[in-house]
C-alpha cells in the first residue's frame, strides 16, 4: 500500500457557500505537499474531507489507498492530523498530553519514542509544564509529537505556522523534511507564501479551486514578465505613481518594497535606470530600485488577477 493522497473532483458546500469546487489532487509518497492560499480558500475543508472528518458532496478521495468515506475507520489509524488550532489540553502537562494521545491510538510514548525523539527532546525539559503555559513554538512541537505518536503514514498539518515565531517555524520545517526523508507523506496548508518555497510541490488555492500545481521552482519559472522592486520615503505615492509608469502591468506592496510588474511587450525594454529616472521626476526621495526574482507570492497575485 502506497502512502499517496488522491482526490478526484471533490466538492463540498456549506449551505449556499461552495467551500471547494471540483478539486483534483495527487500527492506522491514521501513528499511535502503544500496547499497555499489565503483564509477562506477552502484549505481546511479539503483537509477535513481527506481526514474523514467531513463527507464530500461529490467526488472521491483515497489516502494511503483507503477511501475517505468507506474505509474511514482504517484510515483514521493510518493518518496523523494536526488541526489549525493546536488541539492540546491546556490544563494537562506536556507529558500528560502526549500520554493521552498515545493511549487514544493504542500505543505508548516509549514504543514510538524514536520517531518523535528529535522533536520531543526539545520540549521534554518542560514536560511537567501545563500545555497552556507553553510558547507558540513549543505548542507546535508538542502538537506535532502528539500527531506522530502512533507512527502515521500520512501527516496532515493544517496551518501549523500560525502564531509561531520565525525561528521556531524554521526549526519546524527542518523537522518536516526529516520526517519526509523517513518516508512520511506530508500535506501541509499555509497562508504564508514564504513557507511555500519550503515544500516539494505546492497547489495554489483560491475560492475553493486549485489554480496551479507544481514545484515552487516550476511555479516561479512560469512567471515571464520583468519584475522590479522599488521603495522610497512615500510608499503609498510610489505605488500610485508606478501604476502610471509606461508598460506597467501591476504594482503592489511586497514587504518593505513595492513590486512592479511590466508587460512583456511594451515594458520589455525598460530598465532599473528608467524607473529611477521616472520616480525622481515625481519628486520621490531615498529611491531604491532593483530587479527582483519572482516568488510564489508574485505568481499567486498574478493568478488571482485572472
Amino acid at each position, binding site marked *: 500500500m502506497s502512502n499517496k493522497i488522491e482526490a478526484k473532483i471533490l466538492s463540498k458546500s456549506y449551505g449556499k457557500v461552495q467551500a471547494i469546487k471540483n478539486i483534483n489532487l495527487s500527492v506522491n509518497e514521501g513528499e511535502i505537499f503544500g496547499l497555499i492560499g489565503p483564509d477562506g480558500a477552502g484549505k481546511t475543508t479539503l483537509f477535513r474531507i481527506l481526514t*474523514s472528518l*467531513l463527507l464530500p458532496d461529490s467526488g472521491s478521495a483515497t489516502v494511503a489507498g483507503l477511501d475517505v468515506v468507506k474505509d474511514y475507520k482504517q484510515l483514521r489509524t493510518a*493518518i496523523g*492530523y494536526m*488541526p489549525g488550532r493546536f*488541539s492540546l489540553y491546556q490544563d494537562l502537562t506536556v507529558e500528560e498530553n502526549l500520554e493521552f*494521545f498515545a493511549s*487514544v*491510538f493504542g500505543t505508548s510514548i516509549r514504543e514510538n519514542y524514536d520517531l518523535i525523539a528529535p522533536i520531543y527532546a526539545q520540549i521534554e525539559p518542560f514536560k511537567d509544564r501545563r500545555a497552556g503555559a507553553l510558547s507558540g513554538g513549543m505548542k507546535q512541537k508538542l502538537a506535532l509529537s*502528539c500527531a506522530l505518536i502512533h507512527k502515521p503514514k500520512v501527516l496532515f498539518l493544517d496551518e501549523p505556522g500560525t502564531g509561531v515565531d520565525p525561528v521556531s517555524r524554521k526549526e519546524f520545517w527542518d523537522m518536516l523534511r526529516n520526517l519526509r526523508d523517513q518516508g512520511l507523506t506530508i500535506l501541509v496548508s499555509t497562508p504564508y507564501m514564504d513557507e511555500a518555497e519550503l515544500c516539494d510541490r505546492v497547489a495554489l488555492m483560491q475560492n475553493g479551486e486549485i489554480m496551479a500545481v507544481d514545484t515552487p521552482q516550476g511555479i516561479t519559472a512560469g512567471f515571464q514578465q520583468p519584475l522590479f522592486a522599488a521603495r522610497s520615503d512615500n510608499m503609498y505615492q510610489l505605488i500610485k505613481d508606478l501604476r502610471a509608469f509606461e508598460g506597467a502591468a501591476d504594482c503592489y506592496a511586497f514587504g518593505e518594497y513595492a513590486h512592479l510588474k511590466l508587460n512583456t511587450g511594451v515594458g520589455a525594454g525598460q530598465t532599473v535606470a528608467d524607473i529611477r529616472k521616472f520616480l525622481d521626476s515625481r519628486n520621490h526621495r531615498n529611491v531604491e530600485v532593483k530587479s527582483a526574482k519572482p516568488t510564489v507570492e508574485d505568481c499567486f497575485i498574478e493568478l488571482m488577477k485572472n
Partner: protein
Amino acid sequence: MAFVAKEFRHILRDRRTLLILFGMPVMQVLLFGFVLTNEIKNAAIAVLDPSKDTESIALTNKLISSGYFHLEQYLVSAEELEPAFRKGKIKMAIIFPDNFAVSLNEPSSLSRPAATIQLLGDASDPNTATTLINYSNAIIADYQREKFPILYPQSPQIKTETRMRYNPEQKSVFNFVPGVMTMILMLVSAMMTSVTIAKEKELGTMEVLLVSPLKPIQIILGKTAPYLALSFLNAAVVVVLGIFVFGMPMHGSLLFLAAECVLYMFVALSLGIFISTRAKDQMTAMFMSALGLLMPTMLLSGFLFPRESMPWLLQMIGTVIPATWFNTIIKGVMIKGVGPDVLWQQTLALGGMALFFLTLSMKNFKDRLE
C-alpha cells in the same frame, strides 16, 4: 451613536444573547406566574364514611363540588387508609364518625361530644397537605354556618381533627432533601457532561479525538464515567446530610435508593450527552442545560411548587421531567419506606427515559464533523 448601533448588531446577531434577553424573562414570568399560585385544584382524596347519612353525604358533596378535591375512592374500612397513602394515590383522607347526622343534629353536651371529622394529610409533601387541610376546614365551617346560622353555646358543632401523616411536624426538609437531590444530580450529571463535551468541540480537541481510532461510545464513556462517579458521591453526601443533619427519616432500603439514583443519573447523563451533540461551545451547552433541564427540574417537578396547583399543560410537561418521577421515588423510599412493589411505575418511567435519551444521543453523536 455608531457604537450603540454596533452593540445592537452584536446582540441581534447572537441568537444566544437574544434568547437570554427575551426567552429567559418570558419563560420565568410565565412559569412563576402559573406555578406560584398555591391554589390546588382536583387533589385526590379518599372518604371513609361509616355513617352514610344525609349529613355526611351532603358534606362530602359540598367538599367535592368546591373543585378543590377529586374523590379518588370511598374507603370501606380504616385498614384501607395506609395502603392508599403509601401508594401516593391520595393526598388527604376525610373520616366521618359513626352516626354523623345524629350527633350533628343533637345539641352537644358533655355526655354527647360534637360531631368530629378527622382530616388526614399526606405531609411528605407538607405544602400541599397544609393547603388541603385549610381548604377542608373552611368548607366544613361554611357547611356548619349554613346549617346553624346562629350559634348558641348548646348548638351542635362539627369539630375537625387534623393529622399529618409521615411528617407530623411538617418539616420542610422532607421536601427539600429530595428536591435538592434531583437538582444536584441533574446539575452534575447533565450540565457538567454537556459542558465538558462541548469544551472539546470548542477547543478543537474533539477533531483529533474523532480522527483517532476511538469509537464514539468510547469517547462518551471516557468523558462521562468520571461524572457518573462524582454524581453518585454527591447523592450520597446529600442523603447523609439529610439524615444526620436535618433529621430526614430513612424508612426504606438504602440499596434500592442507590439503584434508583444510578438510574436517574443515567437519564441525566444521556440528556447531557444529547445537549452536547447539539451545542457547539461551552456557553451554549451551559445555557441549554440551565434552561432546558435545571429550570424545569426546579419549578415543574413539584420540588418548589405543588404540581396539583399547576395548569394542565405544565402538569403534562412535569410528567416528562425525570425529576418528577425521581422526587416521588425518593420520598417514597425515605419517608414512606416503600419499595419496588409500589414504585415500579416510576422506576419504569425513569428506565424508559434513560433508554430513550441514551439511544437518541448515541444516534446524534456523529463520528464526523457537521
